[in-house]
């Protein structure tokens, strides 16, 4: 039988605040920092300590909620989710349960069949747990991550293929990075997925029994795990069986999902309202303030780039894929360069240099102003395109001003007609056979001669003047 997959995603997003969500500890790099370097009595759950909500974390969550078109609830409630584990110091996680901060949003994704709306059920704040490392005969607890703010974004089961789920996830990552609330650094686990997958016979409405795959840390493993579940569940149904409602893990090496626990072993988290935190209230003024600071989002920027700069869809898409790149582009345009030329230089030479050296747009030494200057040197005919590439390479290395490089290295394009005429004369004198050949009708030889003159001029001759002088002497 043919089955239609039904997929919902839960995305856990670390919010890139400076301090943890309920204490003053700094948020440190989860990979590089020394274990337990960012720990205090509150996040290690010493008796008598109390949580206090980091307003910055709330604002970051509000940004995401707003970007997804969610309602920001005027009152939301923190709750205690109770379970024992050594990486959970209090023995409960503070999370939002029945009354989350943001509800009912949506996101537009592109699919093979065109654009599609994925509904977002809710987004709620919670704290991360610490990290356990198992060594020979012991387990080590690192609480650096305990209390790092997390936003859990829950979609409706509106996706029908792993590719759609991936598009949703990638889109979400782009938005998060735009909002400045998450680095998008997947290797560091700052975004983690849980995929809920079920299948049903094509054409039917009733949802099948779903499984939940936890701890998916990359787009790839998420996509693979969903595909694996679709295939597995379809096979179970084809064989006349029933899908079990289970919580699963993902074995990266085997490329397989495996059962972590069944329905009967489901945790009873005994949620109840967190008595240490009053209801979280967001008034109109606060909401307005956060909304006012919201950056333009990728989709809106894309449309504006098409309309204002007459870019191709391809260029616009590439340029808005990263907020810093889009801002770099606009700043370069604001420095007087033509949008189309900026797009070409960026997506061509500049990105190539960045790829070769593995540096990001934030780190490069070429300022938007320098790139704009370089582009105008070309358009004003002061240097030609090949020279410009060379100069860009130089700016990329040294960060020096393009004009200065051109002057210092004597790279300026030669537009002196008399000088160019001299180069032409010496080439013509040196190659009598080719000249004869041209004059006998093999006009194609002119291009070869053009190249010889340019070589003589060490590539710096103004090509237009060169061509004119060459034709004048050949035809004259």
């Amino acid at each position, binding site marked *: 039988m043919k089955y239609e997959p039904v997929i919902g995603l839960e995305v856990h997003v670390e919010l890139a605040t400076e301090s943890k969500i309920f204490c003053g500890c700094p948020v440190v790099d989860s990979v590089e920092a020394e274990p337990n370097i960012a720990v205090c009595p509150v996040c290690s*759950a010493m008796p008598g300590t109390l949580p206090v909500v980091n307003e910055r974390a709330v604002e970051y969550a509000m940004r995401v909620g707003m970007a997804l078109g969610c309602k920001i609830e005027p009152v939301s409630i923190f709750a205690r989710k*109770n379970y024992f584990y050594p990486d959970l110091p209090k023995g409960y996680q503070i999370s939002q349960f029945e009354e989350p901060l943001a509800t009912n949003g949506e996101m537009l994704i592109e699919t093979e069949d065109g654009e599609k709306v994925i509904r977002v059920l809710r987004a709620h704040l919670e704290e991360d747990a610490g990290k356990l490392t198992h060594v020979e005969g012991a387990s080590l*607890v690192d609480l650096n991550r305990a209390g790092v703010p997390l936003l859990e974004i829950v979609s409706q089961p509106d996706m029908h293929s792993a590719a759609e789920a991936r598009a949703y996830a990638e889109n979400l990552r782009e938005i998060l990075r735009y909002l400045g609330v998450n680095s998008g650094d997947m290797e560091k686990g700052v975004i983690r997925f849980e995929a809920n997958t079920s299948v049903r016979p094509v054409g039917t409405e009733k949802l099948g029994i779903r499984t939940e795959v936890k701890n998916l840390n990359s787009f790839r493993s998420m996509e693979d795990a969903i595909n694996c579940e679709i295939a597995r569940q379809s096979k179970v149904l084809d064989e006349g069986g029933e899908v079990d409602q289970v919580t699963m893990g993902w074995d990266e090496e085997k490329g397989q999902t495996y059962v972590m626990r069944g329905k009967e072993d489901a945790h009873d988290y*005994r*949620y109840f309202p967190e008595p240490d935190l009053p209801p979280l209230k967001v008034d109109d003024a606060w909401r307005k303030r956060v909304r006012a600071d919201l950056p333009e989002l990728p989709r809106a920027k894309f449309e504006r780039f098409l309309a204002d700069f007459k870019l191709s869809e391809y260029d616009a898409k590439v340029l808005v894929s990263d907020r810093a790149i889009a801002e770099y582009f606009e700043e370069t345009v604001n420095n007087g360069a033509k949008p189309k030329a900026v797009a070409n230089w960026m997506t061509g030479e500049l990105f190539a240099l960045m790829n070769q050296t593995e540096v990001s747009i934030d780190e490069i030494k070429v300022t938007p102003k320098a790139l704009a200057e370089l582009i105008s040197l070309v358009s004003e005919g002061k240097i030609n395109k090949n020279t410009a590439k060379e100069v860009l390479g130089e700016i990329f290395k040294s960060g020096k001003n393009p004009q200065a490089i051109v002057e210092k290295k004597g790279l300026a394009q030669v537009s002196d007609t008399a000088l160019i005429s001299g180069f032409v004369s010496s080439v013509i004198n040196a190659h009598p056979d080719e000249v004869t050949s041209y004059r006998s009708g093999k006009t194609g030889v002119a291009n070869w001669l053009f190249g010889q003159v340019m070589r003589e001029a060490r590539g710096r001759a103004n090509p237009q003047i060169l061509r004119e002088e060459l034709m004048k002497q050949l035809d004259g």
Partner: protein
Amino acid sequence: MKIKDLSLAGLKESLSSGEMKSTELTRFYLDCIGERETDVNAFLHIDEKYALAKANSANCPNSPLCGIPIAIKDVLMVDGMPATAGSKILEGYMPPFTATAVKKLEDAGMVIVGKTNTDEFAMGSSTENSAYGVTHNPWNLDRVPGGSSGGSAAAVAAGMVPVALGSDTGGSVRQPASYCGISGIKPTYGRISRYGLSAYGSSLDSIGVLARSVADIIPVFKTMVGKDPLDATSVESPTTPRRLPDAESLKGTRIGVPKEYFVEGTQVEVAGAVREAIQEFKKMGAEIIPISLPHTEYAIPAYYILASAEASANLARFDGIRYTQREGADTLAEVYNQTRGKLFGEEVKRRIMLGTYALSAGYYDAFYGQAQKVRTLIRRDFEDAFTKVDAIATPVAPTTAFKIGAHGDDPLSMYLEDIFTLPANLAGVPGLALPVGFDDANMPIGMQLMGTRFSEELLFDIGKIYQRETSWHEMKPKMAR
């Protein structure tokens, strides 16, 4: 006058005048502790060196508390002193910080002499649940001092300190104050920061003060109040607190007497003494108004469900992973089971089980949810009552201090001791306990005055006038005379 008979103001006066040094004052109390502690067992930790050093360095002429000794209930954190909360599971634990309320007192120059005994994690009404032995009532060593702040109450009653801090989740300041014949305040919820108070029932816990008189409570209370950035549930005090219209009498003051608090089952002498005190109020000019708090009888089940539910989560951190003892075992589950099974006492385990059950899937609505509804009704009872009266007068507890072991194997009968004190915690309103007489066995009787939120100052005014006209608060057990 001798030190033992001086009020805090009197002590401050003799320190300020240079008549006495604060080291001498501290030495005096340390000697009293040395003399009586074997009988009373009020303290879990006494730090003479720390106290004398603090007394020696106290330099705060403008503070009314400068150089005055105090004892701290062991559920409160003091940097440099162990904190056990009366539990084996915290034996040897040294907190790395000081509770906000205690810090404010230290900043005001108070001298901490030690930590007092408590029922384990403040769960109990007698200190019999302490893992470190019961505290004895200074009025009769065969009897309990009440609880859970029994160590603090006994220490004050025995003259071992002039004032002490306690905590009150369901009566744990007021009931021991009553049993020991002293005064005690359970403030409005949130008025004093809970930061540094080992949590029992977070939505009910208040830090309170125990002293011989209301006048002695006031400066300590005033020093601790206010919003604390470390406690999100703490609140700023009103700029103009409610006071009596007339500082000299109770004219114009309406005092409510709820019928639900004068019912069968209360010791006859207790009800009699409280009624007499109410007659005193009338003589002082108060209007006495019969009122009803109709949901009082549901306070006990609601309280034991809510407090236990919160406690079941609050005590989850004592898992043997990060601090103090860990019982060795092969699996993680066994580490938890062994550590918590061996090191928690019976009453604590009972309440953790009760609370866990009340929050479980399928039972939540019937227990936790229902108890929250009752809590709302009880709160409304008080709101209604305070539209008619300024304060409510009741007994603190149905009986005077009972004999050690009296409730032995029947925890439920002990829970009933809290019936008159629980409602104030559920409603978040303040309650003041005042000594108002003695029973036939010469055990003290306490009266409770409850007020609307933030009306502590008004309750203090009433209490001060009462104590000006009566002398119950001046009575001392033999060992302290």
